[in-house]
Structures are given as C-alpha cells and as structure tokens.
C-alpha cells in the first residue's frame, strides 16, 4: 500500500515545518510509528513518524526544506509498487508572505501575548481537502468548530463523529489537556448576557486590569536566607511569585478557569503557564500541579522549562493545558505592564520590576523594595471584585512569605 508521508502539524499552531534531518534513507524498511525525520516546528524540534509500513521509497522534501503542513515529504510503499505522481520536491503551495508578517506583527508588539495554548493541531490534510464524514461536517458547522483544527481518527485521517465530539469537549486533542478534576458550570442567563455584551464592546476577550503594589521586603529577606542555605537551586523572585500565585489560586478557584464559549470550566488543580521569552517570540511552558509543589521544586522546574524553551525543545504537552499565567518583565526594568490573556485561560498576572521606593511605614518615611502586579482578567469569567480578592490574597502572601508554607 502506498502511504504518503505528510508534513504533520506537530504543534498546535504549526503551519509549516523545516525538515532538519532524515533518520531513514530511501530504500529503508519502515514500520508504522518509526521515526522518519526530525522537523523543526514553530516551537520545537519534533519527530515525524511513519503512518504506514513498507519501504521508504522516496524522499520528496530534502533536508533543510521548509514545507507547509499537509504537503508530501516522502512516500512509503511496498518494494516494486507503482508510485503515484508526486508534487515537486520543496515546492509547497505558495502562500502570500504578507500573511505571515501580519500574523507576527501584533504578537511581537504585545508584551506578553503567549501563543494560544489550546489551538488543536490541524488534521494532516492531503492535497488541502479535509476528509470528514458528512455527519462530522454537519456537527462541526453546528458547533462552530473549524474542521481544519481537528485531527481525524478515521481511515486516511477522515474526521468522524467522535473527533468532533472530542474536539468540542477538549480544545487540544493533540496537546495535553489540563489534568485533574474540574467542574463545568453551565452559563446562567446573566453570565451569557455579560459575555455577549462585553465581547461586543471590547473585542474577542474583554480584558480588564487590576494593579496592586506589593511590599517585597520580607520576600526579599526570605529569598536571601533561602539562597544562603547551600542545598538546592537558587530561588528567584519569579519562583516565589509562581508559588504564591499557585497557592492563591487554590483559594480563588473562580480565577483558575477556562472560558469555553458555552461554559466555564473551573479547575481543581493549578497548572501555571509562565511566559518565557525566546528568540523571535515567546512561549508559555506549564508547571503542572504547581499548587502541590514546593518552592524548590518550582525553582528547579521553571529553570528547566525555560532552558528547554530557549532551546526550542519543548513538547506540546509542556506548553499547553495551563489554567492561569504569569508573565514577568521585571528584569527589563518595567515598572508595570498589562499582559494579554492566554485563552482559554481567564487571567494572567504581569510582574513588574522590584524597585526601592520611599514609603510611609507607621508614619515614618522608609526605603522599601516594592513591586507592581497587574492582573488581566477575562470579564466573561472573572468579575472585578473576584479578581481583586484574588490579587489581594497574592499581595498578602507575598508580604508575608510564611504563607507559602501555610
């Protein structure tokens, strides 16, 4: 049987991939699931697997070639089997470059617009036509789902009923969903109305922003003392903030939630997305179950994730499925900023730099290390007071670091 090896969508947002290395050569016997090649996606270097068995009869895309998702990069067939006509190597369908520039524009200009975590991987479409059963097409259109964002589990990648159902239930079929228990709450009429009106007035996500200034003296002292202990990783301020935010989210489940169009999903566990700047962009690796991790564990994990992010070695499971985000530009001497929400999450905290400021303490003027936090909230999920109470908890915990072990 002839199996076309297609450039697959190996990350949720991948539109094209660069073929780095072929691990099999023409004439090699391959089995289903064998790794054929390494592909650089928009986020990481990923493995391209064989979807059929036989002989790798032809390599269509040469190493170094950048090809669009869905294009043929090779052919697997039985020895001696007649091969179909193939598109020319390295000649994927042309796409206007203006699209790319336009897409890159806003992202680059926005301080913390992490990649959409929950965009499912497109189905590897052969020749551009999406294969879907008539029922799947009807269901997708009724539910407003984009078929090109669903992966088909039927023969030849056909999208069938169960794929649409799963696609609707879990926004990220190929990526890790947030794990652990959750509760889906049906939308009340007032919540629907709020949602509709705010969207109409403010754009796709109705943001609002809450800023508070936090006294970081005690946190700074705690950090110095912790780092004076010889064992363990160095604790950064960001680690302390991550730890505190995770802890506070447990107390404020209303902020640990996804907006899912027809419902709001409140999570029992905290999976914290942390924005990491990488060359040409940024990405939000996720610290899973952050609320159950010690400060040391968070410090170790955040460092490892940031490193892997910069090496573009993150797997989709490592940067999807977050329930809340933290973005920190303190190291760039930014006093405060507003971050863009990472949908379907409903909130993100933007962390400014810690600076000494004159502050009145018990009537006396003192120099104190202060930091501004700005929380962006999705008003469809989080109302003003809800967000403010959460932020107040964060502030109190940071001002009394003992709360971390509380």
């Amino acid at each position: 049987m002839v199996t076309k090896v297609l450039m697959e969508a190996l990350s949720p947002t991948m539109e094209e991939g660069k073929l780095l290395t072929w691990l099999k050569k023409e004439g090699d016997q391959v089995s289903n699931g064998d790794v054929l090649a390494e592909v650089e996606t928009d986020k990481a270097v990923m493995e391209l697997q064989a979807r059929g068995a036989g002989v790798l009869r032809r390599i269509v895309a040469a190493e170094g070639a950048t090809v669009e998702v869905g294009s043929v990069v090779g052919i697997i067939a039985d020895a001696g089997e007649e091969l179909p006509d193939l598109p020319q190597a390295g000649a994927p369908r042309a796409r206007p470059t203006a699209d790319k520039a336009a897409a890159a524009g806003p992202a680059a200009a926005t301080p913390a617009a992490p990649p959409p975590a929950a965009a499912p991987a497109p189905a590897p479409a052969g020749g551009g036509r999406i294969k879907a059963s008539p029922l799947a097409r009807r269901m997708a259109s009724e539910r407003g789902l984009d078929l090109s964002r669903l992966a088909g589990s039927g023969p030849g990648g056909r999208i069938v009923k169960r794929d649409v159902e799963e696609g609707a239930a879990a926004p990220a079929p190929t990526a890790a969903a947030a794990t652990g228990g959750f509760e889906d709450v049906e939308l009340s009429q007032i919540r629907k109305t709020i949602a509709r009106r705010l969207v109409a007035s403010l754009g796709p996500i109705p943001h609002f922003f809450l800023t508070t200034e936090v006294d970081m003296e005690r946190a700074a002292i705690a950090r110095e003392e912790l780092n004076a202990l010889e064992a363990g990783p160095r604790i950064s301020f960001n680690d302390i903030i991550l730890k505190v935010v995770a802890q506070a989210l447990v107390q404020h489940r209303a902020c640990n939630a996804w907006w899912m169009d027809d419902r709001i999903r409140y999570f029992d566990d905290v999976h914290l997305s942390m924005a990491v700047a990488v060359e040409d962009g940024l990405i939000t690796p996720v610290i899973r179950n952050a609320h159950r991790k010690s400060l040391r564990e968070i410090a170790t994990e955040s460092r490892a994730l940031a490193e892997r992010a910069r090496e573009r070695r993150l797997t989709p499971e490592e940067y999807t499925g977050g329930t809340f985000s933290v973005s920190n530009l303190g190291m760039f001497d930014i006093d405060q900023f507003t971050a863009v929400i990472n949908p379907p999450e409903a909130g993100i905290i933007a962390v400014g730099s810690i600076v000494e400021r004159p502050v009145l303490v018990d009537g006396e003027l003192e120099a104190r290390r202060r930091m501004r936090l700005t929380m962006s909230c999705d008003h469809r999920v989080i109302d003003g007071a809800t967000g403010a109470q959460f932020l107040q908890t964060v502030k109190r915990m940071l001002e009394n670091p003992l709360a971390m072990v509380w």
Partner: protein
Amino acid sequence: MPIITYRDALNEALREEMERDPDVFLMGEEVGVYQGAYKVSRGLLEAFGERRVIDTPIAELGFAGVGVGAAMVGLRPVIEFMTWNFALLAIDQVVNSAAKMSYMSGGQIRMPIVFRGPGGAALQLAAQHSQAFESWYAHIPGLKVVAPATPYDAKGLLKTAIRDNNPVVFLEGEMLYNTKGEVPEEEYTIPIGHADVKREGGDVTLVCHSKTVAIALKAADRLAEELQVSAEVLDLRSIRPLDVEAIVASVEKTNRCVIVEEGWPFCGVGAQVVDEIQREAFDALDAPVLRVTGEDVPMPYNKNLERAAKPNPDKVIAAVRRVAYLD
C-alpha cells in the same frame, strides 16, 4: 399468545383468507393431496375441496399463466412455487403479464394475485436451488415484493397480500418454516411497505429482511456483549415498496448502517437501500454504508464453501467494526 411455526402461520393466513373470500384459491405443485412440499397447505384440500386447492403438473409457466388469467376475470389466486428457483420458468407470466396488466389496460384489469414460495438458500441444495431473487422482482414496476422473517409477520403480510389488488411476490424461506414465534389468535393484518424495528439500538443500523433478520439479531447480541456497540435491527419486511422513512429515521439516529442480505451484491436490495440513504440521510452519515451479502459466486455445494458464501454474524460484526471505526 400462542407460539406457532412460520409454516403454520402461513397456513392460518391461507385458511382464514379462503374462509373469508370464496374467490381465493390455491394452486401449485403438490399443494393438495401431498399438502405442500413444505406442508404449508396442510389440511386445506380437505377443508376447501379440489376446486379451490388445485394440484398442477410440473409446469410453472403454465399454472402461473392460469393464475394470471383467473385474476384477470376477478378471482384471487395464490400461486405456490415449490421454490423460487423453479419460478424462473414462470417469470414471463410474472413480469410480462401480471406486472403489466393493470398498466396496459389503463387500470381496467386488476391483478389480485399472490405468487409465493421459499427463496434463498437452504442447506447444500447447490447452485441452481439456492438463489435469492428479491432484487429481480423488486426491479419491476408493477410488482410488490414481500419477505417476512417471523411467523407473526408472515401471517399478517400474507393476508394483506391476498387482499391486495396488485400482484404480490411473497418470498418465504425453507429454513424459516420451522422457526417459531408468537402469533395472536385474533385476526390482524400488516400493511405492505412498513419496516419493523426488531431491536432498538443507537450505534449502528442493521438493515435486513427474511433470513438475515436472525443473523442481524445474533450479531447485535454479540456486538452488545463483545464490543458494547448497540445495534438497531431494522427488518424491511417489504422490499417494494421500500420503507425509506424508517430507514432514514434509524440512520439519523445511529449515523452508521450495515445492510445484510442473502442475495448477491451486484444490484442487490442493499444497493437500493444505500442509494436511498446517501440521498435522504447524507448529512447523518458518519461512515460509508457497508453491505454484507451472499458472496458473488454461484452457491457452492460443498458444505464448508457454502457456509463461507452465506452471510453470517461474523461478517456482520466485521462490517460494523469498520463503520464504527473500531478497527
């Protein structure tokens, strides 16, 4: 409710209709003195006499033609073919005379005739005597084609067929005659053209008729047990007119369909059902409709080969696995 055989259910239908209407008579090979090759006409000669239960020579074209003539002048003949394989000799009377008479006379001549007998394969009757001809007759405008699977349906449909003013091809089954089922004592009839849900289900529709109903039911049991797949078994009962509404309703519920029939695949009954489904229920389909048919060969005499050539629950389950994407 009494439980009787399919054979006796047909016998009851004949007896009741002959009692009800003196114009009804039965004619065929061995229907009288021998009481029927399959004993469907047991006791009828004694009850109704030689004028209404008529033994014929072995001459299908002849007695089918006599039946057509009798219907033309107002009687209600029931013509028994010992099997539908022998009725090939009489097909000119069925297709060219019975099916056309009302049309070619501008409705002046009615054709209240029933042609009945067992169709399909029994056991090791070989290539010439194991054929299912539903699709042959269903192809002809002017004929109604009925193929009941249960004693209840056999009785109710035969009574309706005898009362119908159009020619009805009534297909029974040698392997069905001994099957038993509930048949009420009080009189009832079943309208022609109505399918019947023999088992409700939500995951796949098994369209079947006649002997394949039992196959579909067995497959449905195993599907529920082994694969947790809930199959709806839809018995067509009537091939023409075809109950498209019932087929579409079921497929809209289950989104998947497998058609099970004894006949050959090419231009078979299932081909017509597929055509209706793709047109009327296109947006309900989650998978191509598959068919389980008799294999596309003359029926082998060899027992193992014969078994392999017939539809069976394993073949149905394999098809269901494909339409439900379980493979």
